[in-house]
């Protein structure tokens, strides 16, 4: 069977502004981002024949197609599990292109996550229906374990206990992301870096997580255009070649509450993704110049560095010391400021940043970028991506 590696590329990226109140519908945001991505690629809506989004997106593919003027679609698909879908949308698009199911696929994510339905607020309906997920939530929601911060905090406490990690270690991630965002005009926290002391002084959300351990809530949309690498080379922009893309779910997997596995101090689903990415791309961690690590909550950045093999288990706290993941560190992570600093667009804005880093057009450009690793939402079944020059 032929490999997917190198056969497809991200040819265009587009986004709306990132805000706390977009003032327009989610469908309009989606349409704007798709237009921007197509313009960026130098393609027209009539070139698009495939669309992929998240199961959580409220805009149907056909609705976006109608707004944008996309005609016939021969491929449409949705990826499940919240923000874990991000890189999965690119995997689905790449597979469709590589197999001839479609030629130009648009991936998009659009929401008013701050001015509309906020994921950070308790939603008693999570355990309302006896679906498999509703039943899963029913072991947690009745006890008030109902917000993403709380679900992650439970993992974080165990991780701290097991490896001697401290809240200040989590704080170093927040400081790095806010430092990067402070020089990114598109970031909500542009011009607003923080200190470790400010992190420590910020209020408890769910102990052991402070406010500054939690990503923001944002309104906005991001879209990507995926097509054959060969075709992408003839388009307006230099292509970001998809060296590898993978989804991952681990044994005993749940949505945010995989507390029943033997070991609660890791993210085995990201281990699955990492192994696939290295195997399919033929690359190793030392060949990654910058990484986009999903940062809805700081602790899981540490877990991901470990699961992906950038360091050993329990070693991430040392890996991030002394600005290790800052723009001038040994592995710059989220040069755009991540979801803690730029915006929370469910990981899709991170993929766009990876494309800019490959193109050499990022505001906080890392020198000599050949390969960028991107991850998607954690604590849930997830996905990952390696984009390369070419």
């Amino acid at each position, binding site marked *: 069977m032929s490999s997917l590696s190198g056969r497809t590329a991200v040819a265009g990226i587009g986004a709306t502004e990132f805000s706390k109140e977009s003032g327009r519908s989610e469908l309009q945001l989606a349409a704007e981002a798709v237009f921007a991505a197509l313009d960026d690629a130098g393609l027209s809506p009539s070139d698009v024949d495939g669309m992929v989004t998240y199961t959580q997106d409220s805009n149907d593919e056909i609705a976006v197609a109608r707004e944008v003027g996309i005609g016939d679609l021969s491929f449409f698909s949705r990826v499940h599990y919240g923000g874990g879908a991000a890189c999965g949308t690119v995997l689905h698009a790449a597979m469709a292109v590589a197999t001839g199911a479609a030629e130009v696929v648009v991936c998009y994510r659009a929401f008013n996550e701050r001015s509309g339905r906020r994921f*950070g*607020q*308790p939603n*008693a309906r999570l*355990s*309302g*229906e*006896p*679906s498999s997920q*509703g*039943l*899963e*939530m*029913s*072991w*947690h*929601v*009745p*006890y*008030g*374990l*109902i*917000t993403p911060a*709380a679900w992650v*905090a*439970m*993992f974080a*406490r*165990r991780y701290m*206990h097991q490896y001697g990690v401290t809240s200040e270690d989590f704080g170093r991630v927040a400081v790095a992301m806010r430092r990067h965002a402070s020089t990114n005009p598109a970031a909500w926290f542009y011009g607003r870096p923080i200190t470790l002391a400010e992190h420590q002084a910020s*209020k*408890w*959300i*769910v*102990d*052991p997580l402070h*406010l500054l351990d939690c990503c923001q809530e944002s309104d906005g949309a991001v879209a990507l255009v995926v097509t054959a690498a060969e075709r992408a080379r003839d388009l307006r922009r230099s292509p970001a070649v998809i060296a590898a893309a993978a989804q991952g779910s681990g044994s005993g997997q749940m949505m945010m*509450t995989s*507390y*029943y596995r033997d070991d*609660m101090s890791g993210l085995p689903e990201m281990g699955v993704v990492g192994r696939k990415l290295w195997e399919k791309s033929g690359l190793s961690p030392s060949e990654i110049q910058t990484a986009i690590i999903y940062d809805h909550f700081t602790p899981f950045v540490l877990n991901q560095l470990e699961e992906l093999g950038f360091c050993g288990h329990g070693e991430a706290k040392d890996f991030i010391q002394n600005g290790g993941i800052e723009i001038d560190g040994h592995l710059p992570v989220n040069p755009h400021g991540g979801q803690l600093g730029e915006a929370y667009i469910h990981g899709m804005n991170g993929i766009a940043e990876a494309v800019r880093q490959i193109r050499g057009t990022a505001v906080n450009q890392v020198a000599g970028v050949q390969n960028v690793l991107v991850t998607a939402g954690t604590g849930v079944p997830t996905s990952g991506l390696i984009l390369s020059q070419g």
Partner: protein
Amino acid sequence: MTELRDHLMALADKAVAAGDGPRHPAPHPVNAIMTSHWTEAMGDRNPAYTGQDAVAPPAMIQVWSMEGLSRDPAKEFRRAMDDVFDALDQSGYTGVVATNCEHTYHRYLSMGEELTSSTRMLDMVGPKRTALGEGYFVTWNVTWFSGDEPVAEMMFRLLKFQPLRPVEKVKREPYPLTPAVNGDTRFFWDGVRQGELRIQKCGACGELRHPPGPVCPSCRSAERTHIVAGGTGTVYSYVVHHHPAVPGRETPFVVAVVELPEGVRMVGNIVQYPIEDVYVGMPVRVTYQEMDDELTLPMWVPIQEAV
């Protein structure tokens, strides 16, 4: 109505007029064993109540004339006011609640003193409307004697009332965070309602599993049973929820992953304990909390380590 009142009042007047009743001997003399039990139960460590020249705690006075649990009907004595109580019961004033009790002690009692007691009805007032229902307040006095010397007195008042017709049980505000339940999970929720913490057990291979599911992942059997957990565990991880507000909950509150000695983990709240003292590895035991008329949740309280 007036007729009934007149009848009851006449009986009361008669009982009051009867004055002091006969002196009944206490079943046991004032003694060290009873004193020791009483002070232990009350947590009273006054040294005056132990040793060679011990005296009895004055508040124990009523204990000395108590009959014990297995009363001998032949030895039962009737007080003048018992006619009043019988009439009240027969007239529907079946409810009883004590409202006042005042002791007066004339001196300390020494071990070995033999007491008698005598009862005198003081008055009856009513009928009065009360929150419990319409009723009569009956007041009497008991005097304890050592020989002929009065050593203590008690004024006691109670309300005999007609219980209001039992009101429809007030429905509690429904707890907003309800679990979804189906045939695969109902046994667990039925269990907690009965004060049992149930763990699914495979009917074929015996494997324990929580959270439960319809098919045993070890042997594919859909035959399900359960065991009742011993009810202890240790905190494997925990969080303290501060923000945002959670419906049905007061913040901050603690949620923990508890590891059970049976080999499974469960999520639940740690309650009745200072939040800042919770730690990973803390031993806990299960308790149950009714959240509303339908839902009971298992909760965890610390097992206090020996000091």
